[in-house]
């Protein structure tokens, strides 16, 4: 098992290295980041001086080498825009995003899986068809569109909930959280719903598909014939078997939601990293992009690792292989 973990760790490092090269080369391909930031009226000598000060007059490989060298000193650089160390900038906003993402994904899981199981258990019931209709709508409508509709309906027309921002927060373990305050929840609920709908749709579909398969399997037929109660069947067989695809998708979606909370954060003015990264892309704030993408890559590798481990736990057939 330890060997397995070390192997994955090495892979993670390789991935992050490759990522950093891709981003560096990508930004380089777009052009000199400072051309977006320099005041347009700045005369050429000032332009050259600033570009030199930021080391952007050097060849690509030299810039990259310097970046890596500093990286190993634990220095990921400072944002071109905010001049704050990028880690401070990212970690300062990460809790808001994590809070939003976890609320969405867990909400989607907790609501979606039971609905999906029901829809798969009674596939022809009216309620099941209604659930499926909702799930299909859930991933048919683009997120930004739903977000605006939610704001128009609940914040502007009805005036029930705030239109954006994060609301009151409480410090827990040195980090500000809004899930622990009522005002925080009132701010959280719209963006979380917005972000969760797509995941909810996926959870419902996966749970339904899995349940339908299991319910028609011989195992369940025999179990029923043996007089085992329906509740026990669902707990013992259905939940166990559908948990594998759900674990995969949950892992993938957790990561992708983190990376793609951009749109929701933009619309709801949620002060998380998603907004930060889209703005840094638009400003070509390379240090922030680099740090964010390296961190995200690391996070994804971690999530995939956890998913693989959960696989092994859930599916005993794979365990033979994972622990030789």
């Amino acid at each position: 098992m330890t060997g397995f973990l070390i192997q994955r760790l090495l892979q993670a490092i390789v991935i992050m290295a490759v990522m950093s090269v891709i981003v560096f080369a990508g930004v380089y391909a777009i052009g000199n980041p400072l051309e977006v930031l320099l005041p347009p009226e700045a005369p050429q000598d000032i332009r050259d001086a600033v570009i030199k000060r930021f080391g952007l007059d050097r060849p690509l490989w030299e810039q990259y080498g310097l970046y890596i060298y500093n990286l190993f000193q634990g220095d990921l650089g400072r944002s071109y825009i905010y001049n704050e160390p990028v880690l401070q900038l990212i970690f300062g906003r990460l809790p808001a995003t994590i809070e939003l993402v976890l609320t969405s994904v867990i909400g989607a899981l907790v609501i979606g899986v039971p609905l999906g199981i029901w829809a798969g258990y009674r596939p022809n019931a009216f309620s099941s068809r209604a659930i499926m209709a909702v799930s299909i709508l859930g991933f048919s409508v683009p997120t930004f569109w739903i977000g605006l509709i939610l704001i128009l309906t609940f914040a502007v027309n009805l005036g029930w909930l705030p239109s954006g921002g994060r609301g009151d927060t409480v410090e827990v373990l040195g980090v500000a959280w809004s899930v622990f305050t009522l005002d925080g929840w009132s701010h959280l609920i719209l963006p979380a719903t917005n972000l969760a709908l797509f995941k909810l749709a996926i959870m419902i579909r996966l749970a339904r598909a899995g349940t339908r398969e299991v319910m028609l399997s011989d195992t369940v037929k025999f179990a029923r014939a043996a007089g085992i109660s329906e509740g026990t069947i669902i707990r013992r067989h259905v939940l166990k078997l559908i948990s594998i695809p759900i674990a995969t998708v949950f892992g993938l979606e957790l990561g992708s939601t983190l990376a793609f909370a951009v749109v929701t954060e933009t619309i709801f003015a949620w002060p998380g990293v998603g907004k930060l990264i889209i703005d840094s892309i638009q400003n070509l704030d390379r240090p922030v992009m680099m740090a964010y993408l390296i961190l995200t890559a690391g996070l994804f590798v971690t999530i995939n690792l956890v998913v693989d481990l959960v696989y092994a736990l859930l599916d005993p057939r794979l365990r033979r292989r994972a622990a030789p």
Partner: protein
Amino acid sequence: MKPFSWAIALGGLLVATAAGAQTLTVGVRGGPESMDPHFSALGPQADAVKHIYDTLVGTGVDLQLEPSLATSWEPIDDVTWEFKLREGVKFHDGSDFTAEDVKFSIERIPNVTGPTTMEIYIRRIADVEIVDDYTLRITTDGPAATLPFDFVRLFIVSSAAAADFSDIESATEGFNSGEAAIGTGPFKYVSWEPKGELVLERFDDHWRGAAPWESVVRREISDDSSRLAALKAGDVDLINYVSSADYLALERDNDINTFLGDSVYVMNLQLDQRDETPKVYAKDGSPLGENPFQKKAVREALDLAIDRETMVDIVLEGLGTPARQLMPEGFFGSSDEIEAKPYDPDRAMELLAEAGYPDGFAMDLYCTNDRLPGDGAICEGLGQMFAQIGIDTNVNAISRSVYFPAQARKEYSAFMNGWGTLTGEASYTLGSLAHSPNEEVRMGAFNRIEYENPEVDRLMQAGSKELDADKRRAFYEEAMKLTVEDRAYLPIVVLQTVWAANADAVGDVATRADEETLAFYIQPAS
């Protein structure tokens, strides 16, 4: 006293207290980048930090110069300006403002400024000499007629409070924590985080008098619809940059007041003047073998093809005015003699035929779509108008992060972006755009079409050295006329800006041409 008048007096008192205790919450499109006022020259940054710090020279609503921390200034010889400073001004920590603070502020800029460099405002300064506590002499590297205009963004920090926070490593920490964020402005710094809320509280000893708001919260909401939604939901009292899409509907809304002002931004179409230009083709895609934009008839045809009235009325839904020159009318150096540009597509087609393109040609038109209000839509509108005179136009409205680096590499032939005359005078605009690129005289840095008119160059150089304002104005007016006449730059529209406020919270908003939303000049509803 009768009970009746008691009630009035009491009522008056209550109103006064309520007004004094008010908080103004503003939804702004862009927030500051740092609490260090010398870090960035960007517009939203200046807008935010102007609450905390004063500039050496002030600007009024229409960008006219006015006294601020300097009460008067005059050139005493060709290369020296003398500034008299205001006496009795207090910093937020209670200390006195003196000439030392100005010198300190100027000298720390090169050490702390970021990529949107503030060095542009001090580039002419050779030396700063303190004559006494309230007199300052500034020597320039040559005759610098426009020096006072450069100082409208020269923020003054406390030399005592910022002494230990004046290198690029420590400055941000010192200022963002509030320790060094000591200014003379109408508000004191309370808290801020990047992209978050800037919280300010009133500085009662401000030299202009106390601000009408007890505290101010500036919340960054970059999306136009979300910002308006926040206003309608009552989460914020005031928003800036109302989208042209929402303006007409808002005007009809009784709960919301709108405030319309002219901006400093002009949308310019820029036509490459080099011998070879990359993005112009014959209609079948083959090379043309020449740059049609070098022909004046072609440039004039494009100019005549632009229906500026329609651009304003339809595309911007009224939020603009047809542009005649490269800056708004009335700015220092703009010309009164430039006529409104006619719209005449038939004449445009004749001109194209005369220039040897009876069937037109094809071109790629590039512009930003995320920088200024309406930029992408104006670009599409231009595409339609050029198509109507037979020029197949492939419209590329793209992100500024792609646009500007490529534009700097001179990869475009016909391109449009906005230009803001932030200082309110012509040397800023014509010096960057109309003068031919010339590193020696440090002009033409943004002339990406390599436009060159020797007479314009001569006038701009003469103007930069002319200390007499009237003579200088004449040079610039002439340069403006010649540039517009050459039609390498085609001004399209002057943008307007709209603020919107909840009628029960905000009474009046100063509609500043620099688009700043300064709480000091915003009146509570009575």
